[in-house]
């Protein structure tokens, strides 16, 4: 019971973190340095999963992506692909709940950069893409790494939205938190303890690893 759940949780959390880091970094940059109409609105929308209860987020995801959902129905008609109760559903749920944490961390890290350095880079003839990749991201790397750790931790611990969108199918969509829940329900206290310790160890290891990455110059 522990091994398939661990494998699934790791793959879901890692893939979700990659998506979250890429998208969250881009949105964080946009919010930190962009000057455009609707910035506050975009900020509110992006932060929504942070304030909503995960079950509500999960419900909205079903409304949106379910087999008869707003996007899910046409997707199923066109490709025959159905999202709910799949590995992809686990990833989507994890991405959605972890995304605001990364946006917030990235925005803070980019806002902390000395504006004169970005101005200096522009005056040296560099365009916004080059400034973002060669100056802003390296300077914000610690904040971005912290955001990645938080996102990974949030993704691997995701429970509510995952349960609603992906269900709790052992060996297929049963991630570690769901396995812990089930073990407790079945009265298997020992399994619950082992699974909890495994999840704790994975989270600590991830944190240590990513922080080391961030410390390199």
């Amino acid at each position, binding site marked *: 019971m522990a091994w398939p759940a661990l494998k699934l949780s790791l793959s879901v959390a890692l893939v979700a973190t990659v998506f979250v880091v890429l998208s969250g970094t881009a949105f964080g940059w946009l919010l930190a340095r962009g000057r455009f109409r609707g910035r506050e609105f975009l900020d509110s929308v992006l932060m929504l999963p942070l304030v909503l209860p995960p079950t509500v987020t999960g419900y909205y995801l079903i409304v949106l992506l379910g087999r008869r959902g707003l996007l899910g129905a046409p997707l199923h008609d066109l490709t025959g692909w159905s999202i709910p109760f799949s590995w992809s559903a686990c990833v989507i749920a994890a991405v959605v709940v972890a995304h605001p944490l990364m946006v917030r961390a990235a925005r803070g890290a980019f806002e902390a950069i000395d504006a004169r*350095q970005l*101005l*200096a*880079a522009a*005056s*040296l*003839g560099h365009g916004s893409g080059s400034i973002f990749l060669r100056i802003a991201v390296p*300077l914000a790397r610690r904040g971005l790494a912290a955001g990645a750790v938080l996102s990974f931790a949030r993704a691997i611990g995701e429970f509510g939205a995952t349960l609603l969108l992906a269900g709790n199918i052992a060996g297929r969509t049963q991630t570690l938190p769901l396995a812990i829940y089930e073990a407790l329900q079945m009265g298997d206290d020992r399994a619950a303890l082992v699974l909890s310790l495994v999840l704790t160890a994975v989270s600590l290891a991830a944190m240590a690893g990513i922080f080391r990455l961030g410390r390199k110059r």
Partner: protein
Amino acid sequence: MSGFVVDFSLTRRSTDSTGFRLEARLETHEGITVVSGPSGAGKSTLLLAILGALRPERGRIAVADRTLFDSTNGIDLPVRDRRLGMVFQEGALFPHMNALQNVLFAARGDDRQALAHRLLDQVGAGSWHERYPRELSGGQRQRVAFARALAARPRALLLDEPFSALDRSARARLADLLLELRGEAGIPFLHVTHDLAEALQLADRLILLDAGRVAAAGDAGDVLAAMGSGPAHDNLFLADVARHHADAGYTEIVVRGVSLYCGLLERECGGRAVFSLGSREPLLAVAPPGPTSARNVVEGTIRSIEAHGSGVLVVVETPHPLSVSVTPSAVAELDLTVGRHVYLLIKAAALRCLT
């Protein structure tokens, strides 16, 4: 080739909603133009507008015969296309790159590597170009910042208080370097500083900003003379360091053809330096004085006599105008009048070198 041709107005709204308005109107040629003035005069705003980080409401900015901004024609080049080098107060070097990488980030052209190394050698950074900014002193960081700004082959260089975070000796060395770079770079420099001594040492042309307006502009010496004097009516002037008399303990300096002796300076001969002379320091005589301990006796004519507080300020054309504070009774007893020929007695120690 012209330097900076600037004529614009720009309003900056601050958080307490007291807007600041800058009316910038100036025209410069090659060499170093220094913009000075008290803090809040609009010096940094002027630089940021020329750089393209702030947009004026109306007007025109041209640098080295190229229009960068023109509100009537809708021209507003982005910062990256203006080709202006910028040196900030504390360098703003990229902390995750070493000195060489900082310069290479800017370097353009086929010979980027060679250009970067040549510039680093030129600013004296050749032997430590692999160090990171946090491993460098303030002066070293500014040297790298000069090299980085020049590596992008800019058409002009903007410097925003580049020496303000440095100690006195580092300032003097960097000022010498800047004068050297001016000659080799062959592009106009616009140097902002609130330090008048630094302004006088560097300026080919001096612009004084005050409360968002150009208060005076022209040859540095003329602007200084036009100011009359500093806030305490101390005299400030530029002088050439002519020769040292180490055994006698003094240095000979020349101000507009007039030789003066001051205390022995630790500076090389041939350079320019800024000196101050307190207005209370000189003694004023109406007849040639006999032998005194004062090392300098300067002849001149009185240009103006003005009441100043409880005293009187007499400006004597020597030909450099010097302000001298005297008492009202001295004016009466000596019968001081405008146009009268007088003698100023100045102790060597009263001439203080500021740079």
